[in-house]
């Protein structure tokens, strides 16, 4: 009797444990591109008036000019403070492509934002936004549409030296400058071509734009503010060195998912509507979730790519991301080429190379190239990547909690 009962209980126990384990493996991280957050990351910020860093292949050709408009809003009914960092990855010699002999600078420049309740604000990365109180407002009579500085200034936002390629990170802080979990910030970045430019790929018209949402890290337990307000921002994970209370913010995803065209594919819409020989190229921008601004130590991660084509065939490749990386997929390896993949549409899963490596976040941008001799226009479209936390990590034991990331910021004012 007792044996039967205990056996039955044992079987139930195993079953329940299995369900629990399954449920655990299905839990996901909460890095978000569409909810109010406490940390915003704009992975792709470019201000390059002469196209020195946007050419393709990198360094061989001059690219198209571009500047970035940053929009950030306070989604709450109380005042919000934020501490922001530009992290430049422009190489020491900005006229040449980054290389071993022309390394990126990995330098941060920081500034503060103050947003009143529900206030939106914006600035252009190149010139920044100086504090000028009486900027003209937009109006119909007299007609004023050049009202870039109208509105409450969020604080002086410094101009950057051209060219700039890199990222922008904004951390919600209290009025003293210490991090808090308010989840009240949202943002967008718009990459705009200021004037038409001819490159080896075609003509980029004036006003060609692409836009993506900033990636947000939501703070945990906003009601009790589990943030210890120190200068180490604990992104996901458990208790560890520097994170005595465990995670303060939601973790980064285990892997990123990207749907894209195989390099060298044609665009079926352009070809069916207009004929010609179009092509589509995909550019990916990745940054590690672990960054040390206090000691200027760039995060580094080996990124593994698992590439699935329409025939469900699996190929792989890898690359190293140090601090910030912006690359065309075909530069990673031949596996992204149409002639290798054999199908136009591809799904790629990007994962860190091991459990001790930082997680990654990023955005993608597609360049649709018309290819008609009389047109030869290049158009761009950015989009956010999908995150995935439940993908089995073959290198991590199933009973081990996810490894966390950490952003170390310089001393508060």
């Amino acid at each position: 009797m007792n044996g039967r009962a205990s056996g039955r209980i044992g079987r139930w126990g195993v079953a329940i444990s299995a369900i629990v384990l399954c449920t655990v493996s299905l839990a996901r991280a909460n890095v978000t591109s569409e909810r109010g957050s406490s940390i915003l990351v704009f992975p792709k910020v470019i201000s390059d008036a002469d196209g020195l860093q946007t050419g393709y292949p990198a360094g061989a050709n001059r690219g198209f000019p571009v500047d970035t408009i940053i929009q950030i809003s306070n989604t709450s009914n109380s005042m919000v403070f934020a501490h922001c960092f530009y992290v430049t990855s422009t190489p020491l010699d900005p006229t040449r492509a980054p290389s071993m002999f022309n390394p990126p600078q990995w330098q941060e420049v920081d500034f503060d934002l103050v947003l009143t309740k529900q206030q939106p604000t914006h600035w252009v990365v190149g010139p920044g936004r100086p504090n000028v109180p009486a900027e003209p407002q937009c109006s119909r009579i007299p007609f004023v549409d050049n009202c870039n500085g109208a509105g409450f200034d969020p604080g002086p936002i410094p101009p950057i030296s051209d060219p700039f390629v890199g990222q922008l990170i904004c951390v919600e802080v209290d009025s003293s400058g210490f991090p808090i979990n308010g989840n009240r910030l949202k943002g967008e970045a718009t990459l705009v071509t200021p004037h038409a430019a001819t490159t080896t790929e075609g003509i980029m018209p004036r006003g060609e734009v692409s836009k993506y949402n900033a990636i947000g890290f939501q703070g945990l337990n906003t009601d009790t503010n589990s943030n210890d307000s120190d200068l180490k921002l604990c992104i996901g994970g458990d208790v560890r060195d520097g994170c005595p209370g465990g995670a303060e913010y939601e973790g980064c995803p285990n892997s990123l998912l990207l749907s894209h065209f195989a390099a060298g594919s044609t665009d079926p819409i352009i070809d069916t509507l207009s004929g010609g020989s179009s092509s589509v190229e995909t550019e990916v921008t990745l940054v590690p979730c672990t960054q040390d601004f206090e000691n200027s130590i760039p995060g580094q991660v080996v990124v593994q790519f698992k590439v699935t084509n329409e025939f469900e065939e699996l190929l792989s490749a890898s690359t190293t991301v140090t601090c910030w990386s912006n690359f065309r997929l075909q530069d990673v390896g031949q596996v992204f080429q149409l002639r290798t993949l054999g199908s136009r549409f591809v799904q790629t899963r990007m994962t860190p190379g091991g459990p001790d490596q930082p997680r990654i976040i990023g955005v993608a941008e597609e360049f649709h190239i018309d290819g008609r001799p009389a047109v030869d226009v290049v158009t761009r479209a950015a989009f956010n990547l999908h995150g995935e936390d439940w993908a089995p990590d073959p290198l991590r034991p199933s009973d081990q909690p996810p490894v966390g990331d950490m952003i170390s910021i310089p001393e508060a004012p």
Partner: protein
Amino acid sequence: MNRGFRKIALVVALFASIPASTSRVSADDVTDAHVASDVPAAILVFPKVVVDTADPPATARGRVDTLIRISNSSNQPVSMKCFWVNANGHCSTSPSTICDPNLVPKDVRCDANAVCQPGWQETDFLVNITSRQPVAWLASRGAAGCDQGSPPGVPCFPLDSNGIPGGPNTNAGSRVNAVPEDPFVGELKCYAVDRNEVPKNLNVLRGEADIIRSNTGMVDAESYNAIGIPGLPGVNANNGDNALVLGGTSGAEYAGCPNILILDHFFEGARDPVSQQTVSTKLTLVPCSENFLTQSPVRTTAQFLVFNEFEQRFSTSKQVECFKESLLSLIDTRSPQSSIFSASVSGTLTGQTRIRGVADADRDHGHTLLGIAEECRSDGGGCAAFNLHFHGTRPQSDVILLP
């Protein structure tokens, strides 16, 4: 006896070790189950699909088509059922004439004594996707098996009935009908099903839409992520009937739609500080609740709260029935320069708008909304689509009733 006791003790210990993780995971799962466009989900919503392939184009949009891309993020095959929702209007005196009910004062394609009646009609299809497979199709062409005579260059399903040896790896049975009319404007909804077409909470679908215009001397591409509605965890969370219950306090099968949508935008007529072109923003909204069974559109009042960079607030409202596409400056008025979304009225370049579908006593519909925005530059500039931000959920459920 002792062995039995040890087993019981072991199980008790096992149970004792579970609560911390269980409670945490359960709570996480509940809070994690948010509508989102950046994680795989069980229902995908593409709020805006446009087609106009005629030469010369039949609409002011120019020649345009939409590429739908959907991927299976899991290593198991999945099927999905999809609905094109045709939101074309048709002239009251000439039902075969397509028109735009949003045009002001009226669409000239309709006779002087006719009105443009908004339409709302669904057509559905089934797609089988193998593990980790990406698939795509043109809204104007649909897709079938590549071995079934698909035109060259047009996306098709490559894995025929033979599939890859060793598993159920086939797209056989998949056929996407093209959108029912050209020109077309409307939405696409897809949800995961099993092989018997019973809805399943398989959070493995992810999608993107590319809207591409190609006209004389220009081409422009914009992309947005499909909005994903995740199924709730639990073996019995989905009862498999034809009513998909989104959110709410009881009977929820999928996550609830957001209470508020938040849009950061340029005010209409503002000058882009980089390209010096005029910026305009087009908003597309669709309701979360839809009745495909009786074809009864759900009418929702959308309230708009608009904040400029001086923290000054304006508000307006608009009815959304099954699909609403509008320039921001035409939401509150027919005179764009007088709109609260106009830069000359708001005084600043950018704004934040909170959009809320108004709930009422109707317990079958939460009256929540989903949508995307498109930002365009004048004088040959391009357009960019982007996803809206979400805030909160609400206690009422939304329901998608299937045929």
